[in-house]
């Protein structure tokens, strides 16, 4: 299965990409995908090294690292929000 991954703001700039398509095994959580991806993408691993530095949304709803990913999901990773 595959999911679309979106990156925003400082994380987008840091990783040098705003989106990618990720292929992953079934029954993968957000945290499991980040851990696996971090092994091949040190910049992503670095970005997640700080505690609480990155926020997660699945299908445009805030989620946490335990959220499951299913085929066709849109996963978004971004820094703490600073609106208003």
């Amino acid at each position: 299965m595959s999911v679309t991954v979106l990156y925003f703001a400082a994380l987008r700039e840091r990783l040098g990409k705003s989106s990618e398509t990720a292929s992953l095994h079934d029954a993968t959580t957000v945290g499991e995908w980040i851990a696996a991806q971090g092994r091949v993408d040190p910049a992503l691993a670095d970005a997640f090294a700080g505690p609480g530095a990155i926020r997660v949304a699945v299908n445009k709803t805030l989620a946490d690292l335990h959220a499951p990913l299913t085929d066709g999901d849109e996963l978004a990773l971004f820094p703490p929000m600073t609106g208003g």
Partner: protein
Amino acid sequence: MTVTPQTSEIVVRVLVQEETFDVGAETARLLADSDEVGGLGSFLGVVRGGGGLTALCLEHYPGMSEAALNDLAEQAVARFDLAGCTVIHRVGRLPVGAPIVLVLTSAAHRAAALDATRFLIDRLKTGAPFWKREEFSDGSSVWVESCAEDDAAAAGW
């Protein structure tokens, strides 16, 4: 047929846009659209100058930003006795003095309007997917970090 008052009668208007907005027109619109209003509360956020700042660049997550603001508006409607509310958030490059965000609430009584205004702006600051980058006159730019004060204000509700 019996008509029961529904939450859906409460006017909720949410916009995310590059263009500016007209505070007077939005006020008149909310007032015209809702019944038995005694007061409107509002907060208007603008780009604050100082320290060589020339502009803010506002990035958002299209689709989620509107959904998050709608969700906040629905929360405000559920918590406070509102007649209606309007939330408009701009994105893109905004110079010093430019309006960024408008929160506008209407209610029969002032306490609900003022409480809901504060709830919405406090929660919006850290709960909707917008990010600010500051641009300075020396050409540098920096992403605004989240601040503990804003986190505390949002958690206080």
